[in-house]
């Protein structure tokens, strides 16, 4: 049904990340913060672990529907 309706795969899986240049990243959906820091932010996002490295990172908004992180993003690592 998903295929017949031509729904984007990211919505299908519920895994959706938006990156606005190197200054802002938005993750939609349930996110858990594993480690909170100004230079490293470790998140659990669905079955993935995401590590965001950068400078002066901070959580601008955090709700059960997603998280918005701002600052200077240098690296995003999935594991």
């Amino acid at each position: 049904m998903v295929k017949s309706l031509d729904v984007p795969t990211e919505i299908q899986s519920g895994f959706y990340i938006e990156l606005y240049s190197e200054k802002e990243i938005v993750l939609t959906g349930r996110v858990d913060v594993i480690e909170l820091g100004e230079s490293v932010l470790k998140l659990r996002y669905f079955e993935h672990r995401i590590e965001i490295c950068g400078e002066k990172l901070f959580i601008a908004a955090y709700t059960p529907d997603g998280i918005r992180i701002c600052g200077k993003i240098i690296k995003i690592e999935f594991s």
Partner: protein
Amino acid sequence: MFDNFLRYVTGTVDFCAEGADSEGFLGFCIKNGIEIMNPRKTGYVFFGTVFARDYKKLRKPAKKFGLKFKIIKKNGIYFSARKNKNKIGFAAGMVFVVFIVFLLNQFIWEIDVSGNSEVNTEDILASAEKYGLFPGTFSGKHKTDTMEWFILNENEGLASVEINIQGSKANIIVNEALEKPEMVPDDDIPVNIIASRYGVIERMEVFDGQKIAKTGDAVMKGDLLVSAVFEDRHKKLTLKHARAKVIARTDYILDVEFPLEQKLTEKGKLRKNIYDFEILGINFSFGNKEKYKDCIIQTEEKQLMFFWIKLPFKLITTRFYSVKEKGITYNFEQAKDGAYALLSEKEKTEMKDMEIISRKVTEKVKNNKYILKAEYICLMDIAEEQPIESDTPWENTDDMS
């Protein structure tokens, strides 16, 4: 900005929590609908902000995750009010001031008239006062439509009047009517046109009467140019009020004198400051102005304001300066410039209806004065009306009478 305002109204608490698992605490709070704003961590200390209503809800998760809590700051209108509850007098004063300003704003304290140039502002204000619009009146009671109509009827030169009342200020915006050209019948008596000065006629425009002189004629002062006696094709004589424009080439002389030594008056030392207070339209003067009436007077008005609202208080400072006489001696160059400036001014006023063809200026210094004598050849209207005394019965034949 709206977010900040909302936070200020609802109240927020800045807190810090010390413990190892602050990330778990953060996730737990979000999962349970407790919004933590601006979460950050320095070492083992977690910082965040919650709405005041959610602060109590943090106790349980804090205990669960082994965090030690501390309030850093309470923000918001509720906390500010509690903090300053001992300063009730100050708060009451503020409320009183706001009330007084609000109350004063309900009255008219300033009336501004705009759009008039011919009709006097004082006349318009007098009309407005007559119908109840003057400083100190309650702004809500004025029926502007009726008042506009009254002011319009009372001042003849006005075409429209609009009154806008904004807070304590009333704006009277007027439009002036164009003046009707006065239709004066000029055929009341029989009149000849004679030459007002000598000259050579360049052109003639005869509107009524019998043309006697013609273009190219040299005429002397008093010569008949257009006659009031008109003979029609049936040889019948009728008397007319002759009207004509007779442009003649003639000469004209202007004399100008510029004294080389002049006395100028200028502002001297400040002798006295007299202050007047105008409160609610009533003037209170602190000093005798009559004593200094020979001085140079300068007045300055200061309107008291509460932020952008004009209050009905004015401070009027009248400064009286002594008159200082100063003697100036001009050199010839300066005097020459001054004399030519005077001549130019005189040309503009005396010769405004003339067309200058040529000008010859002679200069001389006599009796300590720089004297200019300007001789012009110019074109000017030399027609002059001269009523005639006649026993012939005057019959007005014009339509306009």
